């Protein structure tokens, strides 16, 4: 079976992050993410990383679940690390044949790696602590452009339908003896199957659009939301944003 992309699998847990008002949470976390990503100092970025891990632990999302997602990010980011370490100009600290590692390269590579990990880790306490439909509604009430909200909404709804559809095609291919090999024939077959999936999605899109129009869709669907922002949420958001700002103040005056 293919796995559903369920980022919100642990949305039903209870933690300070789960109780955080969705809108305040999105604003505070986005602020923190951007602030960490923009810090030029490696030591301070580490502080950011620890804070991100702290918030993750606070959210009670199982670490194994996060690590499972992080491995994909790691593959991507570590390749940057390696390339930067070998190519960045600067003081040479080691040499393999014609390739050399520079101190500046290692520094920049680590900086980018740690920034990326902090940002990705922060995604979990941010959107992993509420159901994805809540996230969408929060974005809608934060006045994110409606067409963007709709895109998210339909992606979220139909990604599961397409996953099932793909699974059915895959099973049907297997049932008639298809095995995945690295042959031109196998690739061509997969290409055709994918093509059929695209055609089917196109047809489904047409049917969905009809169903929407038959219930009065005019281009700007609205949903009803009940968010209740309390003082606790303001305090929490203010402290996260305060932390984000202080990282930059420290970095600016160079205390550490």
């Amino acid at each position, binding site marked *: 079976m293919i796995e559903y992309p369920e980022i919100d699998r642990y949305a039903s847990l209870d933690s300070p992050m789960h109780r955080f008002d969705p809108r305040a949470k999105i604003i505070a976390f986005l602020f923190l993410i951007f602030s960490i990503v923009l810090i030029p100092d490696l030591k301070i970025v580490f502080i950011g990383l620890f804070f991100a891990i702290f918030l993750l632990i606070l959210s009670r999302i199982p670490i194994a679940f996060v690590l499972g997602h992080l491995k994909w990010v790691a593959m991507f980011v570590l390749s940057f690390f390696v390339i930067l370490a070998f190519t960045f100009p600067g003081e040479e600290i080691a040499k393999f044949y014609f390739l050399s590692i520079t101190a500046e390269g290692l520094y920049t590579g680590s900086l980018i790696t740690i920034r990326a990990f902090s940002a990705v880790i922060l995604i979990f306490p941010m959107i992993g602590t509420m159901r994805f*439909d809540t996230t969408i509604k929060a974005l809608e009430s934060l006045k994110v452009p409606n067409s963007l909200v709709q895109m998210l909404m339909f992606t979220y*709804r139909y990604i599961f339908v397409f996953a099932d559809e793909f699974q059915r095609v895959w099973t049907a291919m297997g049932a008639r003896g298809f095995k995945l090999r690295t042959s031109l024939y196998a690739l061509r077959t997969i290409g055709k199957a994918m093509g059929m999936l695209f055609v089917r999605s196109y047809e489904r899109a047409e049917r969905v659009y009809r169903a929407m*129009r038959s219930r009065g869709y005019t281009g700007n669907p609205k949903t*009803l939301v009940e968010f209740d922002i309390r003082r606790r949420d303001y305090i929490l958001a203010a402290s996260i944003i305060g932390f984000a700002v202080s990282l930059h103040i420290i970095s600016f005056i160079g205390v550490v």
Partner: protein
Amino acid sequence: MREAITVRNLSYAYPDGTGALEDVNMSVYEGERVAIVGPNGAGKTTFLLHLNGILRGSDGQVEVFGKSMAKVKRGEIIKEVGIVFQDPDDQLFMPTLFDDLAFGPINLGLKEEEVRERVKNALLTLGLSGYEHRCPHHLSYGEKKKASLAAVMSMEPRILVLDEPTANLDPRSRAELIGIIKELNEREGITIVIATHDVNAIPELVDRVYVLNKTVITEGTPQKIFSDVELLKENNLEVPEVFKLFEVLRCFGYNCEELPLSIEEAVEHLTRTVGINDGHFHLHIHEHTHDEVRKLRSKYEHH
């Protein structure tokens, strides 16, 4: 009786030029239950799309409660006619059931309390209370089917159009859905139009049947339609099993003019026959019985 839907000389061709509908005429009266039957590709779905203005005929071709669809605003039409499409994954497009049920009422421009009230009522009618915050992909097929009906019922239409409501359902969900549709008609007076292949549901579910194969072939009570063997053969249609059984009984000498179409009618018929004949009835085998049974079999072979 007032006409709920009037269709006059409606034709439709797909963009590539193939004709889908030719000169269709139909009248559905207020509070009536009507089935549209016909072979695959007969244009049933295309026809249904005309009933709430997704496809529009020219002036006067399709009228709902006397108002021409070509002239009326979309908002007016969707208030009167709700369509439940065949595939619930097409029908349920919002992230949660609540949002989906609220989608129509919000588009009708209702106030928030009114929207919430309607969502609650629709969930109650379909027996889905407590499902508000479920996502469609976590529902079973039967639940999805009921949810798509609820999503249309929350708009409180006076005419309900259903495309294959009983297809692919397990017996229990099927019976449940048939019960709900009948109840909506009997209790709230909602006019029902159903496109279906489910012949066993027809006698129970509708008063009148239209046979559609690009154009309206004929129209009448289920009894009339199912008695016309040539018509059925030409349009790849079937008759209910109970009907066939009583035809077999007739070969064995059971006396009946009008063949029952459903279990209820069969019970009624048997009770009556037994009552007339002092508590029992007779079956027998003559030399022509076997011939008649053979003829009967070949009659229903679709070749």
